[in-house]
């Protein structure tokens, strides 16, 4: 049974009603990990915000977001707040700014428990320290008494992961959870996320621009491009035999390490055949903004 079922979700913003998501449909099964890959501006973060109900006021939304059968898109703030943090939680990209700078992190984590159920202070503190311990925050008792600025980026992201898992949610949305971290720290944080998700049995929507990360974390992957899901399949299928030219391009550009040093790096345009272009010579599937990136003439390498 699917824990999340997004049906024909469209989102646009402001007076001009710029369409950011265009009839996106996406389902995540219980305990499943789905990777969502796309470039910046593809709409992946908007999708995450839409599911969490954290879109800004000027967003217009249509379609359904079914979470365990409840349409989140039609919930009021009060009812939605009872689900957020309890059954549905999120890990954000930027650990440096995602925590309240004026409050000790232990207290911020304890709020998650006291907000959603009655719990005595002792039990709450034990639970916080237990989860902090699990995500690899050694000396959890000390960390709970620290302010965010006293922790490193990796530690803060662990705190945020601990908070996301605190109430044993059914679905965790991770939006570029390690992009802001250094490579070595990134590996450790991913390991923690991986094992804790497995231990809790929570489903996960893992959003990233990095195919390598998604391949490591997820058994299934969806590719989002210009507000549409262009491809979905098992990670193995998509990585080994991508069907959509955009996916092929994305795969090739992401693997610099597979190009011999000094050789020309492949670019996305290489994967579009002339058939994919419209009369004006543009790629029909690429939004105009994206095409203009390369100007009227193609860059050619002289070598």
């Amino acid at each position, binding site marked *: 049974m699917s824990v999340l079922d997004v049906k024909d979700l469209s989102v646009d913003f402001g007076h001009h009603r710029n369409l950011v998501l265009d009839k996106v449909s996406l389902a995540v099964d219980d305990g499943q990990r789905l990777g969502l890959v796309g470039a910046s501006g593809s709409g992946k973060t908007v999708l995450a915000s839409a599911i969490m109900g954290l879109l800004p006021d000027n967003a217009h939304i249509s379609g359904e977001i079914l979470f365990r059968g409840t349409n989140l898109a039609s919930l009021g703030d009060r009812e939605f707040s009872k689900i957020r943090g309890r059954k549905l939680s999120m890990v954000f990209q930027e650990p440096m700014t995602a925590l309240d700078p004026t409050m000790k992190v232990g207290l911020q984590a304890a709020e998650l428990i006291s907000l959603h159920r009655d719990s005595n202070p002792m039990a709450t503190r034990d639970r916080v320290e237990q989860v902090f311990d699990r995500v690899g925050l050694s000396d959890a008792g000390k960390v709970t008494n620290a302010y965010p600025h006293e922790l490193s980026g990796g530690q803060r992201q662990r705190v945020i992961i601990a908070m996301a898992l605190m109430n044993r949610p059914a679905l965790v949305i991770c939006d570029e959870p390690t992009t802001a971290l250094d490579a070595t720290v990134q590996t450790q944080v991913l390991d923690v996320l991986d094992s804790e998700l497995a231990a809790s049995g929570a489903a996960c929507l893992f959003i990233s621009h990095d195919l390598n990360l998604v391949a490591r974390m997820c058994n299934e992957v969806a590719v989002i491009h210009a507000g549409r899901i262009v491809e979905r399949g098992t990670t193995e299928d998509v990585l080994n035999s991508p069907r959509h030219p955009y996916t092929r391009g994305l795969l090739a*550009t992401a693997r*610099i*390490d597979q190009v011999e*040093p000094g050789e020309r790096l492949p*670019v996305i345009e290489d994967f579009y055949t002339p058939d994919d272009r419209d009369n004006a010579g543009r790629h029909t599937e690429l939004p105009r903004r994206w095409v203009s990136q390369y100007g009227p003439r193609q860059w050619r*390498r002289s070598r």
Partner: protein
Amino acid sequence: MSVYTIDHVSRRFGSRRRSTQALNDVTLSVKEHERWGIVGESGSGKTTLLKILAGLDSPSEGKVLFMGKCLDIRDRATLGDLRSSVQMVFQDPRSSLDPRMRVGDIISEPLRSPLVKGKVPADADARVAEVLDAVGLPADSQRLFAHEFSGGQRQRIALARALAPNPSILLADEPVSALDVSVRAHVLNLIDDLVDSMGLTLIMVTHDLAVVRHTCDHVGVLYQGTLVEAGPTAEVLNNPREEYTRTLLASTRLGHA
């Protein structure tokens, strides 16, 4: 010959009582036409090193020889030599292009400098058109403002500015890390090509070993301000001597390859 000789350079920030050591006793020599990649994570001191090479900062200890002469940024003559042959590209083109200047004025800025001398072309307008063409932008771009371009295009503008005064050395500070993966390849290809065709010496700072492997023939690994390993790229990446280099390799896909 050696373009840069970095001789036991250290750099500390802050007051005596609470100082942070950004660079610790770094020694390195960069020869003409070499392409160096300086790899390190945030806080490794890689940007500080690049700033010292660009004459934007001075070492607390040790010295840097530029073309055999001691680099002193308070001395107008040596600074003039530096500015005439060294140019730099920054990480984020949104921040490195003045939002209130037209692209033509941005690119011609080094041409109007009183410090840059020698090989500077007489006709600034013609030179601007020339370098715009070299980076693959149409000539009429010069009338526009930077915000009218996309990220990749802006980095091309920044490259055009760097190339305008005909430098012989190009410093690049994470030139592609602010760009999307799909755009990154375009800019890397361009840098590769320009360095080739103009015979530049390249010193590029990055956190990405894959980029270094592709673009650079030499690599230096910085860890907490110390240069732990340096040498030809293939050698260092295939047989890393230092534990930290191995960790770094393992955390990228290159480790598995």
